[in-house]
């Protein structure tokens, strides 16, 4: 079956391309000292993972990966860096204790992952690679069988939002509110 072999070959090549992109960019995140560059490397990591999802025919998951992580979260990270950093090209210089803690965490995670992969059940059949899966069934599952976890996750997000709004709220003791001049006052009344 030359055709099937060729199709597999293309899949394999694409897998290595995306895997290389993911892993290489992940190393870039760790090595880089500039926070914005780290975010860019993270962008490539996340996009590479989205590509892997596409190869697995999980189109919806891939699009979610792009829109939530690459599109949303990363932009918020960069936004945060822009708003908070003092120098234009903020450096990231971890202290020794931080390095030790981070390294030990990574080692534990790595070992756990390797153990998980080695001890995985060997007889699982990979799902048939076809032309995707019905998105309708996915939606029904999300709003049917998995309604409770879905809603609990959204409550969690709501809590986070309220917390962020509370933190961002200006307290009266923080600083005296500047008296607005006439022009900004008018501007304020507009909105």
């Amino acid at each position, binding site marked *: 079956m030359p055709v099937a072999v060729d199709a597999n070959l293309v899949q394999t090549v694409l897998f290595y391309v995306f895997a290389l992109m993911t892993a290489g960019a992940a190393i870039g995140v760790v090595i880089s000292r*500039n926070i914005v560059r780290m975010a*860019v490397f993270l962008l490539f990591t996340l996009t590479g993972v989205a590509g892997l999802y596409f190869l697995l025919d999980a189109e919806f998951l891939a699009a979610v990966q*792009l*829109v939530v992580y690459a*599109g949303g979260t990363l*932009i918020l990270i960069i936004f945060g860096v822009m708003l908070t950093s003092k120098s234009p090209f903020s450096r990231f210089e971890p202290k020794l204790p931080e390095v030790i803690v981070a390294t030990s965490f990574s080692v534990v995670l790595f070992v756990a992952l390797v153990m998980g992969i080695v001890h995985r059940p060997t007889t699982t059949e990979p799902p048939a690679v076809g032309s995707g899966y019905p998105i309708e069934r996915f939606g029904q599952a999300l709003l049917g069988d998995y309604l409770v976890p879905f809603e609990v996750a959204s409550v969690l997000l709501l809590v986070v939002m309220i917390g962020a709004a509370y933190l961002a709220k200006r307290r009266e003791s923080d600083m005296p509110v500047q008296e607005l001049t006439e022009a900004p006052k008018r501007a304020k009344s*507009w909105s």
Partner: protein
Amino acid sequence: MTFLPILADSSQPLVQTLVFDALRLKPNAPLRIGYSLAIVAAVFGGMVSLIAMFCIWWERKVAGHIQSRPGPNRVGPIGLFQSVADGIKLLLKEDLRPTDADSFLFKLAPYLAFTPVFAAFLALPFGPDLTFEPRLNVGVFWILAILSLEIMGVILAGWASNNKWSIYGAMREACQMVSYEIPLGISIIVGVMTAGTLNMVELGHLQSGGLHTWLIFRNPFVFLSFFVYFVASLASNKRAPFDLPESESELVAGFHTEYSGLRFSFFFFAEYAAMFIVGGIQTALFLGGWNDPFGIIGKLYYEYSLAHNTTGLLVLNVLGAGIFSGKCLAIIFVQMWIRWTLPRPRIDQVLYACVKVLMPAAMVILLGAAVWQLLFNDLSFGGMTHTPVPWADYNPFSVADWTRGQAFPAMVVQILLTLVGLSLFGLVCAWVAFAFLSGRKQVLRLTDPTAIDEVPPSLVKA
């Protein structure tokens, strides 16, 4: 939902099959990959640039006419090759980079802005078989997702330039993006909810039964969400009332202040190609995609598919691509019209408009559309799990079929909405025609130094 794409063998796109048959080749995997790459290189690379160059020329022409001047008119007939000349100029320009810029990110940013827009063309349905990947089950969502990556390029460009104007532009873009994405997404969800599919080709087939089956006229809430989507898409394109990231009057050029030559043109191309894509989503989701208002293409496509008439199908596809592009260009024209008419608000006003006006409006529309679907029975024939397709499942022009599908009220609503939409469209057309005709007698002002209003009647050419 299975559609006809030449009946059984839906894994082989029609055009690809025809090309392979014509060349007497067996469609094996490497050949198909090569074919795909060739399509990407030739059609898409060429098409994206062509669309962008045409739109740039057109924008300048429209701007000129709105501002009472001819616009580009030297290079080629009516200035058509102006974009080519500009392109050559941009190619030959020196590639400048500020000394203190973050060199790696500065070089990367234009590609990050351009590539996603290019990739989004993957799912645009130019015709029933003229879609690059018709099997993409999440087409609409894919375009939204990939377009959100474009913002990253813009923000990085602003950041890496190490320039206060650029940074301001990037910050504004980030603020704006956080505010417009939600109404944009919700208004798309309203359309998708009514159609019951995310696949853009299926969306096209669902709307093939003439004007009243276009999704925008399916129920009043989709009609409203069309306008919400349009306003939000202006913001997503950084188009005029919402072009805060590059507002020339305050930020020089905003995020691309430091860019010149080819790198600048990448941003420029990305903007115009994104306009086409945003218009394309609007066309495919609300305005019937490649279908004509009378349902002729849909009916013929169904019949030709049953009869395996490939030549006819090909002709229909080409016609459909023309109609689709025409609709997109009409939407782009409205975007340009708005750009050269409305003044630019402040950034806080933009955020106010998106978060406090559009977002609640979109939420209400979403709720209304959901309730509507519960109360009003859309077409349903027993035992059917998908939304009924015109011509295949029912005849959209037969009252008996609508009654059989227990959807007589839905039909009345759709026809009423169609009439409302048509009269609105007619009003706009009449307005444009009036402006065009009443402006004709002021041609002389272009060479005459007198003020526009004071051209004496004796000077006006007949």
